[in-house]
């Protein structure tokens, strides 16, 4: 088996930030504001600012159900 895998640190940081944003369970309007202004999302600003608020709310609900952090982090 191949032991090495490609890493994209820029995309990883973006995914980390997006995970934390939804984990915070903020109101959809606040999620939209942060997506539009937080430098963590700058690389894909056009994509994140196209999000529909009602779809953000639905995603918030599924994250609330399924998200789990590593112990102590």
């Amino acid at each position: 088996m191949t032991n090495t895998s490609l890493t994209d640190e820029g995309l990883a940081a973006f995914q980390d930030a997006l995970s934390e944003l939804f984990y915070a369970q903020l109101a959809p309007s606040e999620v939209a504001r942060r997506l539009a202004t937080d430098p963590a999302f700058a690389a894909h600003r056009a994509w994140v600012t196209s999000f529909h608020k009602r779809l953000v709310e639905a995603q918030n609900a599924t994250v609330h159900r399924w998200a789990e952090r590593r112990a102590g982090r």
Partner: protein
Amino acid sequence: MRRTPPRVGLNLIDEKAFRAAALPLFEAGLVDALEVDIDNEWGNSRGRVRARPAWQTELLDLFADEDALYGHGVWFSFLTARLDDRQHRWLELLAEECQRRRYRHVTEHFGWMTSGPFIQNTLFPLPYTPGAVELGRDRLCLLADAARCPVGLENLATTLGPADATEQAAFLGEILTPSSGVLILDVHNVWTQAVNLGLPAEELLLGYPFHLVREIHVSGGSWFQPEHTADRRPVRMDSHDGAMPRAAVLPLLAMALARCEHLEVVFYERRGVLGTEAYRETYREEFLAVRAAVEQAFASQATNGATNEENAA
């Protein structure tokens, strides 16, 4: 050229009620293939390995012996940009499982689930970029190295914005094409994205690279009611826990059946809520509706083929 009709099968549900619901279908010889959440024993976040009950392992072995077993991953998180120890362990356990049983192919979900400190989450889409395509091709190689059989991806139902629906077909095609990866076309997922974004489902479907489709999923879901946004239209969820919207999904299935030249199998998916006989009856009826749609599509093909041959003679 006439095509061989695809197999029609069931996704194995990890609950006792599945036995009661599906047994009449198995006994009648109507289930040609079985798909299993291949990481059900080891995939969830807590790292506990849960042994399958004997009735499940017997069923898996039976279909593996018939070369009619298909593996579907749930927990890998395919497009995580920085893989962690959990995911490397997942690949090791996938390799062990694929040495234990013969799978026709193994697939995962398009998108990503975990990142950073998260060891479990729901699926997210991601922006369509050259870097993400490269990442996808790398992850497909990892899956193939572990599984030692054909591997591929299922189109994602989750959408946060329009590009997640309108660009997904091309995104998947770019990842899968170089290695001739398997595409699972989930027609309920296509419809879900269309409904949630107000897009025509048929147009979304027609964008998919049908030549890569080896498997089709047909399922149901449920609705989420937003309460904190000005737009309160319900959001369709690919939760598999509700009835199949036949009037919407079966025409999409027929469209796909007519176009997927290399289609091998169609699976009906359902999760949970099989606890009453009424639910179990609905489950069987929906499977039979899917089976009938497949048979009708290929009966039409045979009739058209025969007519063409007569005309040519």
